[in-house]
């Protein structure tokens, strides 16, 4: 019924986000697992991820996703419990599951046809011969409950209760054969029982119920026995309960021959939106743990990972009065956080510390704060004007103080918002281990991939911009960098290569480096190729040094690979890498040593929207030059000006720099250094330094970068605009593209 609009729902979008995150996380964990097989922490994480996806899929009625994750979960659970080894074939299976989930996610978000899970389910099924792929009730096999013995934790709980003089009893419930949502019903029974009495445990256990390992029978152990009648009355109201009875426990323990071999039950997603959802994630209860007030209601989502729910459904027991005051000794946690009586079911864990915010809202806040900063600057100016005149000096003073306060506040606000825009690099790094793994298999290379600094944070726009470049650089490292094992042996290197991806802070920049111990770049080959492609004449090539030659790889249309391989692909080259980085004020640099490896370093600004800039005057207009691209400011208004081959140069500490007029270069006559020029900015122009002559320096300021609209978005050498303190806009220059 509700299927028509589900794709538009907020829940659906959150699920897609979550799905993407889970897949990435799991991918990283799997690569780790390959290195340290059997790591229980990693296995649990993978398991949990599957579980979370399953939960989300079930809530939305996405049956295929539920089936796949459930099947995988079943296999993983065996690994987790130690009854099965996680071998490489299973890792590969998990990778295929992830691939399927990616496709599926893509299909869900685009509305294209969804991938079929059939063959994948078969593959997973092959791993669990004892149980067919798909949700089956394998209730007690894992916990040994098929004997007369109770599971040890439950046994213990009962012993304890007896020891304390309590009177344990067991509630036996039968469900209607083949009723849907048995696990939900089971939870309801346990919840209702727990509202009245103290539940000690159940068969199947709550963990098993979570896994849908529920048959037609359910035994709930509780104290005290006197509450038995009330318990029976309460649980009888649960849908599909056909029989409910209470027995004192000693007697029943003797008879506890567990024939709970539940019939395999297809899990039905709640597609028709009626009562109940499949059970979703909850932490395993501890020995004496009681699923404190867990319930699944008719509305809302399922308690996720929270033991603290006291959901209320229409079928709630009549004796509400007892709820809350009832003896719930076993569920202390529950009481600590128990929600209000009629609280709806909510996903408790998600309400914790984070909120998802639309990026456009962040952008809006950023802009607004930018405005605030500008207004504050104006206020400061007004204050100093007022202070200058005697009769208004006092008022000016006051306003000045106010402006100073305002400055501090707006600065904090600004920093806060900028922090909100930061994302850890993990967001894009997470997929790289898998990428390297797949590529190295494809290329027949042995590669150890090391990653560090993935917690380093960067503005989200910057993160987005470097994703593709990083992939390209990593691919290059695998494809062209690291040699084949044979080749490496011949060279006396260990057969396995190393690619190291690291990120770290340096002042207000973040550096990201990809380092390999491969063959290095063949500079001669680069030169040759440049000539062959007509990018440079053979005469020019003979003149350039190694550093300059390396710059050639950033030229459009350059690629040293004789044939584009599947891995490196075609079309995209280092020129695109550089272009992408420059768009976010970043730079990229390559260093290489023949036979020893290549290092590619990207340098990125921490944040984008606000930058420090030098305000300079040229030709009567103010321009902003990002401070990050200015190495030094030189006052040459005296002597140092010299001419070499008719072109002006200046000498700074014995070094000669070509002197380019800013006004001139903007108007197309760059060597035309006017007499008015006083200062020169030593700026980076690609790899070399140039001196940019300006008329005057007006100071360094924090400026807010503004876009100028589509019409002016592609002007070479112009990075955007900012609004000056007097309200006039000024052009921000991109010195990399001035010349």
């Amino acid at each position, binding site marked *: 019924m509700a299927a028509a609009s589900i794709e538009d729902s907020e829940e659906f979008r959150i699920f897609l986000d979550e799905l993407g995150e889970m897949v990435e996380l799991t991918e990283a964990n799997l690569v780790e697992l390959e290195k340290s097989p059997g790591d229980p922490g990693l296995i649990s994480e993978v398991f949990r991820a599957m579980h979370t996806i399953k939960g989300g899929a079930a809530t939305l009625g996405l049956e295929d996703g539920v089936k796949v994750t459930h099947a995988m979960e079943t296999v993983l659970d065996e690994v987790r419990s130690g009854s099965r080894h996680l071998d490489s074939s299973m890792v590969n299976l998990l990778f295929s599951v992830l691939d399927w989930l990616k496709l599926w996610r893509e299909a869900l978000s685009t509305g294209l046809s969804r991938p079929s899970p059939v063959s994948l389910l078969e593959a997973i099924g092959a791993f669990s011969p004892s149980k067919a792929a798909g949700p089956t009730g394998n209730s007690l096999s894992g916990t040994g409950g098929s004997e007369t013995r109770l599971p040890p934790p439950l046994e213990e709980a009962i012993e304890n209760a007896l020891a304390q003089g309590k009177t344990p009893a067991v509630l036996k419930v039968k469900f209607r054969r083949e009723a849907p949502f048995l696990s939900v019903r089971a939870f309801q029974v346990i919840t209702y029982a727990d509202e009245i009495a103290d539940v000690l445990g159940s068969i199947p256990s709550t963990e098993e119920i979570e896994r849908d390992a529920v048959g037609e029978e359910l035994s709930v152990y509780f104290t005290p026995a006197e509450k038995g009648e009330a318990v029976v009355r309460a649980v009888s109201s649960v849908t599909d309960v056909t029989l409910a009875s209470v027995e004192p426990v000693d007697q029943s323990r003797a008879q506890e021959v567990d024939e709970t071999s539940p019939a395999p039950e297809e899990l039905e997603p709640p597609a028709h939106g009626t009562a109940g959802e499949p059970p979703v994630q909850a932490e395993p209860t501890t020995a004496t743990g009681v699923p404190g007030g867990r319930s699944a209601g008719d509305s809302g989502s399922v308690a996720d990972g929270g033991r603290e729910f006291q959901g209320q459904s229409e079928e709630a027991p009549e004796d509400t009065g007892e709820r809350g005051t009832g003896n719930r000794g076993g569920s202390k946690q529950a009481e600590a956080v128990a929600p209000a009586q009629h609280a709806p079911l909510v996903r408790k864990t998600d309400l914790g510390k984070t909120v998802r915010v639309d990026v456009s809202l962040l952008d809006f806040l950023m802009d607004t704060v930018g405005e605030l900063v500008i207004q504050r600057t104006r206020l400061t100016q007004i204050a100093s004007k007022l202070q200058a005149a005697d009769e208004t000096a006092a008022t000016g003073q006051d306003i000045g103080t106010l402006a100073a306060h305002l400055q501090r506040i707006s600065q904090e606000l600004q920093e806060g918002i900028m922090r909100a825009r930061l994302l850890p690099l993990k967001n894009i790094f997470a997929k790289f281990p898998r990428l390297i793994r797949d590529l190295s298999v494809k290329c027949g290379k042995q590669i150890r991939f090391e990653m560090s600094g993935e917690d380093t944070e960067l503005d989200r726009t910057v993160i987005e911009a470097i994703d593709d470049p990083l992939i390209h650089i990593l691919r290059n490292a695998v494809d062209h960098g690291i040699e084949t094992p044979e080749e490496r042996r011949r060279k006396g290197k260990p057969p396995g290569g190393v690619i190291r991806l690291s990120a770290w802070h340096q002042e207000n920049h973040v550096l990201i480096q990809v380092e390999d111990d491969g063959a290095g770049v063949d500079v001669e080959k680069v030169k040759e190729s440049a000539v062959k492609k007509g990018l440079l004449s053979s005469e020019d090539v003979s003149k350039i040094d190694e550093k300059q030659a390396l710059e050639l790889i950033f030229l459009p249309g350059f690629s040293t690979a004789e044939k584009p391989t599947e891995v490196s692909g075609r079309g995209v080259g280092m020129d695109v890498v550089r272009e992408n980085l420059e768009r976010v004020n970043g730079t990229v640099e390559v260093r290489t040593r023949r036979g020893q490896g290549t290092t590619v370093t990207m340098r990125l600004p921490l944040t984008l929207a606000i930058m420090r800039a030098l305000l300079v005057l040229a030709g009567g207009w103010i321009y902003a030059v990002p401070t990050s691209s200015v190495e030094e400011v030189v006052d040459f208004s005296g002597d140092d000006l010299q001419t070499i081959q008719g072109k002006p140069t200046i000498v700074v500490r014995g070094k000669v720099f070509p002197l380019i007029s800013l006004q001139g270069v*903007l108007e197309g006559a760059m060597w035309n250094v006017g007499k008015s020029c006083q200062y020169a900015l030593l700026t980076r122009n690609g790899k070399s330094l140039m001196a940019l002559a300006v008329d005057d320096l007006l100071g360094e300021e924090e400026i807010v970068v503004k876009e*100028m*609209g589509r*019409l*002016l978005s592609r002007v070479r050498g*112009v990075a955007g605009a900012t609004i000056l303190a007097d*309200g*006039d*806009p000024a052009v921000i220059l991109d010195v990399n593209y001035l*010349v």
Partner: protein
Amino acid sequence: MAAETQTGGSERQIVVFSLGTESYGVDIASVREIIVMQRITPVPRTPEFVQGIINLRGRVIPVLDLRKHFGFDVKPPDEDQRIVVTDVDGEIVGIIVDSVFSVMRVPDSAIEPPSPMVTGPEAQYLIGIAKTEDRLIILLDIAKIITDAEKRMLKEMDLAHAVLDEGDS
């Protein structure tokens, strides 16, 4: 869905401005506001018809000189000049005109299709001609003017690049 309930058919609201000796009109739906002339910061390396940028309440928007865009003679700045701030699909662009007369309602019946009467460079942006009691108003397609400006920009800037690159080597 547009309401055409008025008796006698629908009508349009147009902003009427002057440029040289002619009166022009643009649909009011694409006009955001009309502001007085202000100091315009030039943007280097742009074609001449791009006058520069202004600060429109915290937003930086490009301003085009329509005279230059149409290839008319340049007129020295005066007090009547206005910037018509247009909004075409969210792209905000200011357009300098000689003066703005008014906002008028023109019944559709008073609008004639483009005629060979208009022969200037602006003819390619012509939607029609509105006849009122005292004058003829040339109706312009503002979206086309903007996209055309964009195309020209790209073209002229590419040329500029080529020149720059040449001068470089």
